[in-house]
């Protein structure tokens, strides 16, 4: 398998008042294409920060991130947005759907952004695939947690990204919904050949990945 993502000596530090907080220390990581990786660790260990750095939502204090053979740490914010738009799908614990957009509009937005010819048609197919045919025109506030997360997944995978980043995707869900979401996610990456990095506290979910990374005090153990 060829390399999709490479993290070289990544450091992330935050300044809180006069204190320097080191969140990630000298992280080296390689993710191959079609690989599924679980990131586990205690709260505050730096898991979400790692995802944010990979997604280009934050910049590391030092080190390099190479995605699809391109160093994204040296890109401008707009260039990173372009990479994210085309190749990275992100799923959050709190779903992050746009509240005033319907389920269909939330999914179609990504497709429209990527200039798909029939965004609404594609979005409908995706939502239908996740059992949300009857929820096309519902606003997020009218959906259950599981349904909201399915919409969020549909939105993240809409443009068939090379990499899916999922931050505690089942953290806000009950067991039944958690199972459904993890099945959908892993089934999708298997079928479509995307890579997946999933941050989770759930050992069962973590076990579904081919590789498990444990982070402690900002370092990979």
């Amino acid at each position, binding site marked *: 398998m060829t390399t999709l993502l490479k993290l070289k000596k990544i450091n992330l530090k935050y300044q809180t008042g006069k204190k320097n907080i080191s969140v990630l220390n000298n992280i080296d990581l390689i993710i191959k294409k079609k690989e599924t990786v679980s990131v586990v660790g205690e709260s505050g260990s730096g898991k979400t920060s790692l995802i944010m750095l990979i997604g280009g939502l934050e910049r590391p204090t030092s080190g390099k991130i190479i995605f699809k053979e391109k160093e994204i740490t040296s890109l401008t*914010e707009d260039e990173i947005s372009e990479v994210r*738009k085309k190749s*990275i799908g992100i799923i959050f614990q*709190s779903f*992050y759907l*746009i*509240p005033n957009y319907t389920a269909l509009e939330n999914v179609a937005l990504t497709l429209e952004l990527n200039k798909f010819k029939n965004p609404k048609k594609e979005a409908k197919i995706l939502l239908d695939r996740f059992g949300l045919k009857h929820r096309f025109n519902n606003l997020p506030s009218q959906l259950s947690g599981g349904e909201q997360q399915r919409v969020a997944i549909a939105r993240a995978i809409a443009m068939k990204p090379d990499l899916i980043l999922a931050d505690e995707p089942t953290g806000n869900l009950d067991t039944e919904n958690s199972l459904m979401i993890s099945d959908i996610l892993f089934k999708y990456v298997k079928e479509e050949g995307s890579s997946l990095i999933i941050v989770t506290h759930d050992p069962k979910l973590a076990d579904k990945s081919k590789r498990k990374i444990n982070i402690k005090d900002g370092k990979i153990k």
Partner: protein
Amino acid sequence: MEKLNKYSEFTLIFKYASKDLGRNYKKISSIILTLFISLFILSAIFTIEDSLKKELNDNAKVLLGGDLEIDYNRNQGNLNLVNKVKEFSTVSQMIEFSTMLSTVGRTKNKSLFTRIKTVDEKYPLYGKVIYEPKGAFDRMQEEPNTILINESLSKTLKIKINEKVKVQDQIFTVIGIIKSVPDVSGFVAFGDWALAGKQTLEILKLNGIGSFLNYEYKVKFNLNDDPDKIEKRIKNIFKNDEKVKLRYPENSASGLKRIINSFSQFLSLVSISAILIAGIGIANTLLSFINQNNMSIAVRKAVGFYSVNIKNLYYLQLLILLFIITVISYVSSFLIIPVVDKYLSDGLGLNVYPKFSLINFIKIFLVGLLVLIIFSIPTISSIDQVKASNLFRNVFQNLQFYYSKKSITLSIILLSALVLIFTFSSEKATYSFGYFVAFFNCLIIFFLLSKIVIYSLKKFNFSSNILLKVSIKNITQTKSITPITVMSLGLGLTLLLTLALVGTNFKREIAKSIPDIAPDYFFVGIQKGEKEKFEKGIYNMDPDANIEIVPIVSSGIVKINGVNPNTYIKPDNDSYWVIGSERRSSWVENVPKDNPILQGEWWDLSKPNELQISLDAKVASDFKIKLGDIFTLNIYGREIDGKVINFREVDYRDLSINFAMLFNPQFAKNIPHEYLATAKFNDPDKFDETLMLEVLPSLSMIKIADYLTKVTAVLNKVFIAVTLISAVTIVIGLIVITSAIMVQGKVKEYQNLVFKILGFSKKDIVYSSIIEFFIIFMSVILIATFFAVTGSKFIVENIFDLLWKFDFKVLVYLCSSVGLVTLVLIMVTNLKYLNPKVYPLIRNQ
């Protein structure tokens, strides 16, 4: 909550209200700011108006020039009666007239139509004449052929002290420059004027009509006399003299008082517009503030507070806030007085001082209170929607404006009270009421417009452009700021555009259209035997000049159908001037080309011995005169009855010879008369005023262009001031929009975060904001232009009787300026939400 007695309940609520206000004042900063600006403007208007009126009242005697004024207009009057007054008081005689004043001994001499006031040594009875050099005023009384000129005249003709000037055929020496005279009430305050000694009148040849002569006697009572008794005594002396007009200090500066009242009426309407626009923002910010306190309201309910107590808590916070803002606004308005004082002392010689008025303070507080209550009723009522049970589910629904029948009725009653207070306390209640009707209609239409825009954009899916789609979604979302933006920006822009269009039409008419059709000169004071000499004098200089020359006679309407004409019309009516004092009338054989007959027949030639009157149709309508009504006119002391036989449409705009009353020539030609003439030159430069004065020394010439330039200059200043003042509504509108964006800050930040996650670039987000703004602004411009065009057309054509034309340039300039400022402000406000910090948001911090 345990039942407390009223006092304890109030104390408790007051305690919490003060505490909450102290902690949350930053969150309601836009309420504080908009309320402060609106109330400050209102305070400034009230304070300036009060200070000015106080100054005018305190100086009423100074402005009138005495404790009483006996005005005989064009006649010397009954000197026997005046002498009777002199027996128990001091009387100062003054005669005002207008004539030409020219420079002499220069290569190119210049002349100017000047108002000259001859005064005796008792002048002024009150106040001081400010002049230089020292002693010039006494010299003027002692030495013949000396004159004091005002600063404007000195500057215009570049006349220095000790220089010679010519008035008619007499040479005068300018011995001083006057800075101000105290009695500006009855005398010209602006323009070119001069003071001369009483002997001047004897050496000049003045005629009654052309010189605009005015005889006045100012009376000063003895210190120990009872003013009321003396007034009654003087009234009694003149009770049988119909030609005299007695004026009292309370009537002094009535013109100035009318201007102050009209201007303050306009400013009050602008300020109430600003307050009402601010009200829209207040309602929005308050709702957001209550939404932020959703949980604390639920907790308070859970611990036993009644809903009504919590609502009172918020009302009380607003009341405390309003009181503080009213105090600050009112006190701050005193800072404006020194600025006003500077302009007034320079222009009118009046000095204004800040004057505290409890009534004004209460009025401002009440206006603020009414607006606050009207706009906070539906907001604070929403507190009823918060349930303590929400705490168990940790679910807090966003509150919405709550309208009940009771709250709507109360709002309408309070709004009507506000409108009625402003309407009936204004100078012209009809105009104020009309303004309010227009304002609320605009408000409703702009609200409907916002709904139509939202509906249309939702309905039609006409674009595949993602940025346009995001913009449309922002405009059409449930809690979008579209209605607030459309209403607040729309109202401000409508007012600004309307005033600008009125202003440009006015300026264009005065600066271009009127000079095109108006004559170049007016000539007054052509005596009966001088008509040919005058015509020859003109044609000698310009053979192609177009001269119009008509006879004039001065007449006053004494009675209409046998009764006092004052019973036919109120002094505030536009046509009151017809009976205000003696008017000039003329006679012609045929119907004037630009005065078509609207009703009745032209002269009845079979009745040459009867006076027939052709009347201005507007005057007839204002006086409710019917054909066949009888006017009793006083012509040279003789009362003559004339029958109104037709109504003409008189268009005064062309500044040509127009009269409210025309007589049948068969009857009128025997009345002693002078001539009035106008001339339009092929080449105005060919006409030499000084040369003309050598032909006819008593001739007065009024150069229309000079007056139009002066009027245009004054109007320019007035319109700039008016436009700047009205721009305050735009400022308030912008604050309302900014606060609405800030209220949505969290939502905006969240949305931008999601966009960022999905791969939107900053540029995309900025572009979609710009598109969003343009969609809203374009619809606002469209409707605002429609209202401004309709409103300004109505004002220009119906109130000012001028021609209205659409000025595209003004529209483009104003709209693009307002648009640019709004866009920049929206962008700057949005800037902090453009780059959301991901970590805290993702972590739900």
